[in-house]
């Protein structure tokens, strides 16, 4: 019904935007997991691990052009395993989307619409996002494209103006290195590269596919740089003591935006307005890909209606979740499991493919 092809760069934008949404959400966990301002080491390790898997997974995906990870699994494993993989991604995307929704809804509630019930905010976002998500991957890609230009880049640029009176020595001390903390934070940083899970599906829609590998690698590098920049920015602005106390450290930085010649009644709203577009795009992307996995797992043809089925599920899951501060301990452990499975499933497929190749040879 809708155009089902995207360009390599559209794919790149989709996975960068979605990763940024999760990176800013998970920032408090990274900040408090590592003692001292060296959480960026965890980010580099996380990025490196993912970077190493990009080549083999792309080789497999190139072999089965047009198939997503669930489709490839269906060709390699018994049906029930591919179904299990499909259900895993459905659960992952729905839970991740409900976290994002809750986080986003609370931000709007506390900073912009003080009297509006959070349930109204969530349902409003869901209704609008579902409309966009139903329009197909091409629309999602174009939204991501526009988001990068009109929200994401200005968002990062505006942050530069908030570094006024920052203490750059807050990035110290680097020694002694809290190895335990760094290792513990790696799964959370890996989860922050959420685009990695999305590319398992989006890569199959890219035409031409030849540039997928290089652009996937670029995604890891660009996303890592944004992640580290965000982390360092918070650290230099607040110092570690204060940064670990903040519920939305990234948004709190926005309170310091000071653009000469501009008057803002509430400076953080400048950032919020960009953040709204970015997070809204993330929700659209997630809804779309949940729909896609549902289609593949349940073997249905074009069924955009799965988007609408998600609305009550997401609404209930987002509504019953506690406030973000109380939610972080609950995110930490599932994020470990999701990160592990996000890595294990592609690795399993790579392993199986190589085994199959050997048997054929």
């Amino acid at each position, binding site marked *: 019904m809708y155009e089902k092809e995207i360009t390599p760069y559209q794919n790149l934008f989709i996975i960068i935007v979605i990763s940024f949404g999760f990176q800013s959400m998970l920032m408090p966990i990274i900040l408090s997991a590592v003692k001292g301002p060296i959480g960026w080491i965890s980010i580099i390790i996380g990025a490196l691990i993912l970077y190493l898997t990009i080549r083999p997974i792309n080789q497999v995906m190139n072999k089965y052009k047009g198939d997503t990870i669930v489709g490839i699994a269906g060709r390699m494993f018994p049906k029930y395993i591919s179904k299990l993989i499909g259900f895993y991604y459905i659960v992952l995307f729905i839970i991740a989307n409900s976290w994002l929704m809750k986080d986003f809804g609370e931000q709007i509630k*506390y*900073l912009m619409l003080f009297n509006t019930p959070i349930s109204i905010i969530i349902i*409003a976002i869901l209704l609008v996002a579902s409309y966009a998500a139903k329009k197909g991957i091409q629309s999602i890609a174009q939204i991501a494209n526009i988001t990068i230009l009109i929200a994401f880049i200005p968002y990062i640029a505006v942050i530069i103006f908030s570094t006024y*009176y920052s203490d750059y020595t807050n990035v110290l001390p680097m020694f002694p290195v809290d190895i335990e903390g760094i290792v513990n934070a790696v799964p959370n940083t890996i989860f922050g590269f959420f685009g990695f899970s999305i590319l398992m599906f989006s890569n199959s829609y890219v035409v031409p596919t030849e540039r997928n590998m290089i652009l996937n690698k670029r995604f890891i590098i660009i996303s890592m740089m944004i992640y580290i920049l965000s982390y360092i920015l918070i650290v230099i602005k607040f110092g570690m003591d204060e940064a670990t106390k903040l519920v939305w450290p990234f948004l*709190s930085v926005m*309170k310091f935006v000071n653009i000469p010649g501009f008057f803002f009644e509430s*400076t953080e709203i400048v950032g919020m307005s960009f953040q709204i577009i970015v997070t809204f795009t993330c929700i659209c992307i997630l809804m779309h890909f949940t729909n896609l996995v549902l289609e593949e797992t349940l073997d249905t043809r074009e069924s955009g209606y799965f988007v609408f089925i998600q609305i009550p599920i997401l609404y209930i899951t987002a509504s019953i979740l506690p406030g973000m501060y109380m939610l972080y301990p609950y995110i930490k452990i599932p994020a470990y499991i999701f990160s592990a499975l996000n890595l294990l499933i592609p690795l399993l497929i790579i392993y199986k493919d190589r085994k199959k190749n050997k048997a054929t040879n």
Partner: protein
Amino acid sequence: MIKCNLREVMMAKKIILILLTTIILTGCWDSAEINDRDYIFAVGIDKGEDENLVFTAEIPKINEGSEEQRIIFTQESKNLSNFYNDSFVRSEKVISDRLMQVIVIGESIAEDTETFKRLFDEIQRSPQINRRVKIAVAKGDAKKIIETEIPSNPIVGRYLSEMLIKLKKSNVQSIYTFDEALLNLQGFGSGLIPIVEKFEDSLKIENAAVMKDYKKIGNLNSLENEIVMLILDPKSSNIRNINLNVEDSIISLSTVNIKSTNKIKLSDDKLSVNYYVTLYCFIESFTLNNKSLADKKFIDKIKEAAVNQISEQTDSTINKVQKIYKIDLFKIKNELYKYHNIKYKKIEDNYQQVFENADINVYYAVDIKSTGLVK
């Protein structure tokens, strides 16, 4: 009979849905027009009775087109949010703190740790109050500061805000916003918050309140504050003129550039901190037709006198800060934590004792770069 095809019905449904969505889902029950708001520019907070706080708010009459008139009202409430609730029934408008410029904390609150912490927590937690709101401690009651009628600039919030920005830019005061006060008090356990006091028919900010563990324990005068600022941030430090009397001549030196290095040594429990500060000066004023400045020996005498004078001030300030107030205003702990972390970890629990016994010295050198426009 009107005949509609399916397409038209669908279109009509879509339009109705869009209209309903725009009306119902805008969340516009939050809206309050700018004309219906009263913006607080400054608030003074003092201690009241029964754990209450006395809030004195200044609201400029901006909605009425006047930039020079204001309303002041005082309200005794349990906390800031109660103050807004209580004010709600006193005015036909919505009280908003979104444009708050300055918070003036009364001396009674600054000297009470628990109340001070309660207040800071509420401001920090508030999604509406900007962390960049300027902050000052009042000499006496904050109410009197807010009520001051300044002829040249009647809006106290604006006057204090502009003054605090100026003092921060010229490095006369180290802290000027709530955020900085919070970061200093939480991170280092101490800080210097500007003191605002009445001066003739205006206000002045000259001294700084010494805060330790969220409590005002004393004051630093402007000279002492200047020395602390010089040690903390020599590059942007702003030293006033050094006035000397050399061989019966009065000479005034002005500092144009400052360079500083430090050497921190920590062995076991013995901490020694040496600052080496070079002041590059020029002659601001001397005596007309006096040609002594051509004499190198005379110049050396000026340098020596300048070093002695500033060293004396510095020693007295260090003594006050280290021995009397017993607080690390020079942020030595921060330096140790960042640059000598392994050694610092060994004395972390005992740092206060180590600091009190530390050997802190500032060694000055004065270099006269110019004699001004005449020899």
